C-alpha cells in the first residue's frame, strides 16, 4: 500500500459526505446505497464514522461529471478513466468524482459503482495506489470482481490503519480482553461440517456466532476467529441463545432466549433487562424467537418464528401492522425454519442447520448457498 506524499489524513474521526448530483444510470437510492456500502468497508476497520448531509459543505463531496468539470483534470469519455479523487483536506480535497460517460450499474454488466466508489473513497481517506493486484487500491478496474464478495484485502487494511489505527477501543471494552477458550472435549469445533449456530449478530463491525455457552468472534482484522465464553464478556447473559441482532443506529445488541430478551452495549449489560418479548408486540402464542435481522437502511428488524416473520419499526419501537407473514412468501427460497440470521454488506444470511443461504433483499432471491461455517475460514 502507499499513502499520498506527505501522508495527508483527516484529523477527526467523524466525517461528513454529500452526494452533490446523481447519474441517470441508476435510481438515486441505488447510488446512495453504493456510497454507503463503500464507506462502511473503511468504517469497519478504522475508528472513522461517516454521516450523510444533503446540503452545505461536507468533508467528502461526491459528484458525477463528464469531460472538463472544473478541476483541470477532464474526464475522457467512455472507458479508460472511471473516476478520480483527492486526498484529505479542505475544499476539493477529499472529494470523489465519477465519469458519467461510463455506464454505472449495480451489477457488473456495466461499471459497478460500489466497486469504483470503494476505491475512490480510499483516496478520499488518504490512500494512494497499491501495487498489490488483490488490493481494492490497485489502480486498474477488475470487471471480474463479485461486488457481493468484495472485502478489503490485508494490504488495504494495513494501509488505512497506518493512517487511522484500528476501530476505536471504546471504554466499554474490557480493559483486559478475556482470553480465547482453548479447545477442549466439550467445545464445538468450528469446522465440524454438522455445526449449527444458536444465534448470530454483528457487533461494531465484527460478527458473533453463538453456540451453547460460547461464541466465535469474526473480525476483519484477524484471520482466525476468536472463541470465547459468553459469560467472559456478558456474565448476566444466558447460554443457549435463540436469536440476536445489532441495532447499529443505537450501538446495541439485543439477545433473545425463550420469552425474554436482553440488551448490551459493548460489554455493558443495559439496565431494565431482561424484558418480555411480548413487550415488543408479539402475541402471547409466541414463546420464543428463532432468529432476527436488523436492516440498517430501513431501521427495521425482522423476527423469524417458525414459518412466519414479524417486522419491527425500531424508530417507532413498535411492531408493524399486517404481520405475521409467511417467510416463504417474502423470502423465496429461504427454508421455513431459520436457526440464525444476520445482515452484512446489504445481504441477509439465513442459517438452517449446518447450511446457509445468502439472500438479496433487493432482488428478493437467494444468491448463494454456503456451508454454515464458511465465515469461520472452513
Amino acid at each position, binding site marked *: 500500500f502507499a499513502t499520498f*506524499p506527505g501522508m495527508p489524513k483527516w484529523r477527526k474521526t467523524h466525517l461528513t459526505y454529500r452526494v452533490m448530483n446523481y447519474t441517470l444510470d441508476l435510481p438515486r437510492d441505488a447510488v446512495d446505497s453504493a456510497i454507503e456500502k463503500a464507506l462502511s468497508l473503511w468504517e469497519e476497520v478504522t475508528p472513522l464514522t461517516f454521516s450523510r448531509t444533503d446540503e452545505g459543505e461536507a468533508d467528502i463531496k461526491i459528484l458525477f461529471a463528464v469531460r472538463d468539470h472544473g478541476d483541470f483534470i477532464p474526464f475522457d469519455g467512455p472507458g479508460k478513466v472511471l*473516476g*478520480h479523487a483527492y486526498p484529505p483536506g479542505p475544499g476539493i480535497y477529499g472529494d470523489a468524482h465519477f465519469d458519467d460517460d461510463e455506464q454505472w450499474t449495480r451489477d457488473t454488466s456495466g461499471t459497478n459503482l460500489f466497486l469504483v466508489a470503494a476505491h*475512490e473513497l480510499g*483516496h478520499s481517506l488518504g490512500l494512494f*495506489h497499491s*501495487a498489490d*493486484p488483490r488490493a481494492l487500491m490497485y*489502480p486498474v478496474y477488475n470487471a471480474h470482481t463479485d461486488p457481493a464478495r468484495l472485502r478489503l484485502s490485508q494490504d488495504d487494511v494495513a494501509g488505512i490503519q497506518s493512517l487511522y489505527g484500528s476501530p476505536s477501543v471504546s471504554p466499554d471494552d474490557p480493559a483486559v480482553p478475556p482470553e480465547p477458550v482453548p479447545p477442549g472435549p466439550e467445545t464445538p469445533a468450528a469446522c465440524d461440517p454438522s455445526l449449527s449456530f444458536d444465534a448470530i449478530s454483528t457487533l461494531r463491525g465484527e460478527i458473533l456466532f453463538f453456540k451453547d455457552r460460547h461464541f466465535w468472534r469474526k473480525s476483519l482484522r484477524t484471520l482466525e476467529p476468536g472463541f470465547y465464553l459468553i459469560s467472559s464478556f456478558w456474565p448476566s447473559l444466558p447460554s443457549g441463545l435463540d436469536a440476536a441482532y445489532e441495532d447499529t443506529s443505537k450501538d446495541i445488541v439485543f439477545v433473545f432466549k425463550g420469552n425474554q430478551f436482553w440488551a448490551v452495549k459493548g460489554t455493558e449489560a443495559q439496565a431494565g433487562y431482561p424484558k418480555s418479548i411480548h413487550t415488543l408486540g408479539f402475541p402471547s402464542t409466541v414463546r420464543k424467537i428463532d432468529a432476527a435481522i436488523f436492516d440498517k437502511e430501513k431501521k427495521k428488524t425482522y423476527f423469524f418464528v417458525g414459518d412466519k416473520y414479524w417486522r419491527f419499526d425500531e424508530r417507532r419501537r413498535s411492531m408493524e401492522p399486517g404481520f405475521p407473514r409467511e417467510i416463504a412468501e417474502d423470502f423465496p427460497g429461504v427454508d421455513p425454519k431459520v436457526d440464525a440470521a444476520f445482515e452484512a454488506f446489504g445481504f441477509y444470511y439465513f442459517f438452517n442447520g449446518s447450511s446457509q443461504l445468502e439472500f438479496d433483499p433487493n432482488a428478493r432471491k437467494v444468491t448463494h448457498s454456503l456451508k454454515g461455517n464458511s465465515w469461520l475460514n472452513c
Partner: protein
Amino acid sequence: YPVDRAAEDEDSMELVQQYLERYYNLAKDTKAFVRRRDGGPVVDKLREMQKFLGLEVTGKLDSDTLDMMHKPRCGVPDVGD
C-alpha cells in the same frame, strides 16, 4: 484495410506517452526520445509501470502492457505527487 502499420505504431506510442505522463510522472518534454526503443526515459518509465502493475518487466511495449493501458482504471496517478 490494409492497416497502416506505421500509423498504428504511432497511435500506440501516443497512448504510451500519455499513459506514462499521466500516471508515472514522465516529463512532458520527452517526446523526442519516443522513437528509441532500447533505453531512455520512456523505457525506464515503462519498466516502472510494468513493475507496479504486476506485469513482466521488459521495458518493451508488449501486448500485455498495451492491453493493460487500455483497461478502465482510476485517474489518480500511480506514482509521484
